[in-house]
């Protein structure tokens, strides 16, 4: 398998991931706040830590999509702490907007129904992970959805003098808000799957993670197809350009610790506006060399959701008090 390993190391940076994870373990030991209720592997994290890492992201997604669809978020019983979790405080959610995306009643694309569907699916992911984790489930961390505004300024979409970017303003704005999350969700699960232990594989954690990965990619496919399709229909690259500015920001937030699947070091695929039936679109986010999907390390994902490229940062952005995770402090 030497040849394969060589290809893979170029394509998917397992080594980078392991290096990052090892560093995480060291930091955790120093901080002395690891989840001592869950058996640690030799690498310093348990399968429950991996699932809880994912649960942080699902809380964020669910709070966003539920508000987009209904104007309100998760019900309280879906946010509580498991009795054995070292994190016991349920965080609050700051919205900062009049949440709920207005949709036109005559919309041919069933916009409200699609908002409802994605909200439901992320809500169920929260519930599934909480059920799988049982008493080890973390509570919802503090979440700040108003970070969409500063994030859009950082991406160069708006200036700070303009009204803050509001992902609930319109369906097009919602698609951009969703774009910020979906490719990240796919890559987070892709990066986390190989970290699950052999025992975890036998327990079904890996196939559950892979199954959620697939659903996140279905969502990402939906979001990217919709942005692209609406651009083609309107002969406008306005929202495609904005999405690509988001992608560029995500890339810049992970500078210096990128799990580079391609020679350019990017784990982003910019959307395109095809103009003929024979020019390719760019719906799929994957390596341009081998069309294998990207993975991100726990550090890279945290850099993005914190909105900070700085190593050692433990909170910020969408998570003003940090994630409830042993990976909360970036180490690379």
């Amino acid at each position, binding site marked *: *398998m030497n040849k*394969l390993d060589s*290809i*893979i190391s170029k*394509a998917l940076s*397992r080594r980078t991931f392991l290096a990052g994870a090892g560093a995480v373990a060291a930091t955790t030991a120093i901080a002395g706040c690891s989840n001592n209720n869950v*058996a640690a592997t030799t690498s310093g994290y348990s399968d*429950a830590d991996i699932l809880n890492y994912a649960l942080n992201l699902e809380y964020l997604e669910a709070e966003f999509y*539920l508000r987009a669809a*209904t104007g*309100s978020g998760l*019900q309280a019983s879906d946010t509580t702490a498991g009795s054995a979790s070292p994190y016991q405080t349920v965080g609050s959610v700051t919205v900062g907007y009049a949440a709920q995306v207005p949709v036109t009643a005559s919309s041919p*694309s069933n916009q409200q129904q*699609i908002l*409802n*569907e994605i*909200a439901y*699916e992320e*809500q169920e992911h929260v519930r*599934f992970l909480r*059920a*799988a984790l*049982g*008493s*080890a489930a973390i509570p919802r961390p503090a979440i700040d959805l108003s970070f969409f505004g500063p994030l859009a300024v950082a991406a160069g979409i708006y200036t700070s003098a303009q009204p803050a970017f509001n992902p609930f303003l319109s369906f097009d704005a919602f698609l951009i808000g969703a774009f910020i999350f979906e490719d990240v969700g796919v890559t987070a699960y*892709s990066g986390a*799957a*190989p970290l699950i232990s052999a025992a*975890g*594989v036998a*327990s*079904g954690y*890996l*196939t559950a993670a*892979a*199954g*959620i990965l*697939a*659903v996140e*990619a*279905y969502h*990402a*496919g939906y979001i990217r*197809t919709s942005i692209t*399709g609406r651009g083609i229909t309107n002969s406008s690259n306005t929202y495609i350009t904005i999405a690509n500015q988001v992608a560029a920001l995500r890339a810049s937030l992970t500078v210096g610790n990128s799990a580079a699947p391609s020679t350019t070091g990017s784990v982003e695929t910019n959307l395109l506006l*095809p*103009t*003929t*039936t*024979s020019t*390719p*679109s760019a*719906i*799929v986010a*994957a390596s341009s060399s*081998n*069309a*294998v*999907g990207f*993975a991100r390390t726990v550090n890279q994902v945290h850099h993005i959701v914190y909105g900070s490229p700085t190593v050692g940062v433990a909170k910020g952005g969408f998570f003003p008090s940090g994630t409830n995770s042993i990976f909360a402090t970036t180490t690379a």
Partner: protein
Amino acid sequence: MANQETQLVDDILIQSRRKLLTLGATSLAGMVLGAALPEKAHAATTYTDNDILNFALNLEYLEANFYYQAAFGTTIDVANAASTAAGAPLITLNQTVGTKGTVTGGSKVSFTTVQVGSYAVETAVEEGKHVAVLQSALGSLAVAQPAINIAAGTPGAFGTLANAALIPGGASFSPYASDAAFLVGAYVFEDVGVTAYHGAASLLTSSANLSVAAGILGVEAYHAGLIRTSISYMDPTNAGIGSYTNLISSLRATLAKQGLLGVAPSTYDANPDDYGLATVSTSLAGSGSVTSTRLTDADGTNVIAFARNTTQVLNIVTGGGAVNVAGTAAVSPAIGVFFPAGLNGLFK
């Protein structure tokens, strides 16, 4: 992992299994037992990661040729102006493992919408790259491209399957006839690719291989999301091609369950492991029951995509060729529909 905490997690999972029993045997298998239920009918007691990757390579040969024909009007081993302009890889077919076959059928679609045409071109390029990366990874162990049938009508693979799915006029169905027909043809493949890679993930032993499988799994799901979204935009009320997706999903679920359990499909029709586009009722926190458009092929409770083992996938792509007429015993090699001479490699 062996402590009280883990025990609790395991208990929850066991409870989830019980819950899932009401949803269907295959969703159970897919979610929890993907690793534990490998090959019932085609028991391959010993297999390597390479065997798994070669199984995937067979499927990628099929997908890539379909998309190359639809987008460019050529097979993966013959470049033309369209494939070259799109940057589609030219695939070398000099592998000697197994029996090399030819590709029957397929033709370029005269796309009328930029959306569908450009999606076809993108997907063709990506599936071509999947063939290339698997061939490269396997090196001299890569299987040869088997005989592949992607012909329209009957006895072509697409007409045969469409007819079996009870699509109106299915016997003469051609995925190359129009933008809409192409989307239906693509629909046949993409969710199957997702379930196949999902099923394979737990069987792989090398984390490097797992990373690649997870990466390709994601891409297949992007494709599936793309196809489903496109169909939904074209037929938002599921009156036309949207309804075909349910017919195809039902057929796939039926074939998959024959492959897994070796029983008459009618026993399990109420519990599919496959869902087409539909308007469904879901319960949202704070809003109660709402109407939503199901775009994801996943179980309705946990919203986790399905997984299939190699026998189930074989039975789908061979149109039931992996079990005998009574549906009770294994047939190997499985032959039929898209693979008229069967697959190459261990799983066939």
